């Protein structure tokens, strides 16, 4: 009898511990730096992150993107519906404080304290600096509002239980850099920041482990295409990746969409490349340098 009580107590303890550990955590306002927002840097990060590719509700060549969301992403877990992140106060994120935005981008937690699904790649955005997030939010606030509410995600059990995301985050949400680069090499540091942070390249180019987290031992080594058919290529300097691509070819590809063989970029990467073409050339050079410095793997 006593033994039963002890085991029940242990089980209860573990359950409570897990509930506490997997609770959505919000940052304290103290983390926010004193910083004068820089809208043009925000626009640069907006392109680096390709926010419009998933969130836009207008044609892609529209002068000013409207981020009303609505795109449906069909995955093995069910259908994710991309939310409205336009500055509309009722339907978008116009009412969000800077801290709300930082919590979403860094911790994957909504203003009302719920976990976001990692289809929103906060596992990469957690590597972004607070200053850059402030700039990005300031830029988003300059875009037009969109008055449309999108339907909720439509996921099967157990994926519709958001507490599970808390456990997933314990294992997979890590602000540490993946690849170490020399601390005095500003080009590589910038490239790493863009690729591992806002660019969230690893979300598609890195294979996932059995719980759906990135397998960092094969960082950027290519993976099955999340859209279904085909593969997302290896972009490490491995012979099955970018070994034959000089830096200048990587830069040219990101600028023009043409491979060294003059094939064109295809699939979801078309959008990514067109976003990258809007970055300053120095950012594309930094990305190229970093990709050539990643450990080769396949």
């Amino acid at each position, binding site marked *: 009898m006593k033994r039963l009580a002890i085991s029940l107590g242990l089980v209860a303890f573990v359950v409570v511990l897990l509930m506490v550990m997997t609770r959505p955590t919000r940052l304290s306002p103290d983390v926010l730096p004193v910083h004068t927002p820089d809208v043009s840097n925000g626009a640069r990060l907006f392109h680096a992150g390709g926010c419009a590719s998933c969130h836009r509700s207008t044609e892609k060549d529209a002068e000013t993107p409207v981020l009303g969301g609505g795109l449906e992403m069909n995955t093995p877990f069910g259908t994710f519906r991309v939310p409205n992140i336009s500055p509309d106060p009722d339907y978008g994120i116009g009412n969000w404080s800077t801290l709300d935005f930082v919590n979403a981008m860094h911790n994957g937690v909504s203003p009302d304290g719920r976990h976001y699904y990692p289809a929103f790649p906060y596992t990469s955005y957690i590597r972004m600096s607070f200053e850059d997030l402030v700039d990005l939010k300031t830029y988003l606030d300059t875009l037009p509002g969109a008055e449309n509410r999108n339907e909720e995600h439509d996921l099967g059990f157990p994926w519709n239980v958001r507490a599970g995301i808390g456990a997933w985050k314990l294992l997979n949400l890590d602000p540490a850099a993946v690849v170490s680069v020399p601390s005095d090499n500003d080009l590589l540091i910038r490239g790493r920041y863009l690729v591992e942070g806002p660019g969230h390249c690893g979300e598609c180019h890195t294979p996932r482990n059995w719980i759906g987290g990135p397998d960092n031992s094969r960082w950027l080594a*290519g993976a099955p*295409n999340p859209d279904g*058919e*085909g*593969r*997302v*290529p*290896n972009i490490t300097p491995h012979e*099955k990746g970018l070994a034959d691509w000089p830096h200048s070819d990587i830069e*040219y590809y990101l600028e*023009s*969409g*043409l491979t060294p*063989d*003059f*094939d*064109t*970029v*295809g*699939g*979801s*990467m*078309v*959008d990514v*490349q*067109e976003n990258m073409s809007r970055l300053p050339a120095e950012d594309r050079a930094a990305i190229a340098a970093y990709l050539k410095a990643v450990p080769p793997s396949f």
Partner: protein
Amino acid sequence: MSRFFVSIILSTLFISSVAVAGSDPIAKRQQLMEDTRDAAKAIGGMLKEQRPFDADVAMAALETWKKTATEAGELFPEGSETGHDTEAKSTIWSDRDGFNEKMANFNTQVDAAIAANPDSLETLNAAAGPVFKACKACHDGYRVEKED
């Protein structure tokens, strides 16, 4: 005896290669895309300053693209969804109107590039840019990305 077998094998090869070149739309469109890429190499090589600008070479490449724009749309009939390691995506058949629209846009851009009659690197760049964009627009949703 062995000559007999050799001739059988040779004639089989000949017949099948004629069949491939003659009636197989997948082999045809793959060849067309190869030619299109070779033309892109000629123009892209100039834009990347890997080879000198040559107006005649550029125009010949644009004419190759025009051939693609004219013929490619017909080479994706029902029944040619699979085989030959095709990179054609199933969306070509499920969204034929969208696919046709991209092809028509490619044709429009190639016509404009030919009409521009590029005589310098700058004019070639201005003429070829929208064509490359049209290529990408179709490879975006209607091509499966495979590793070479």
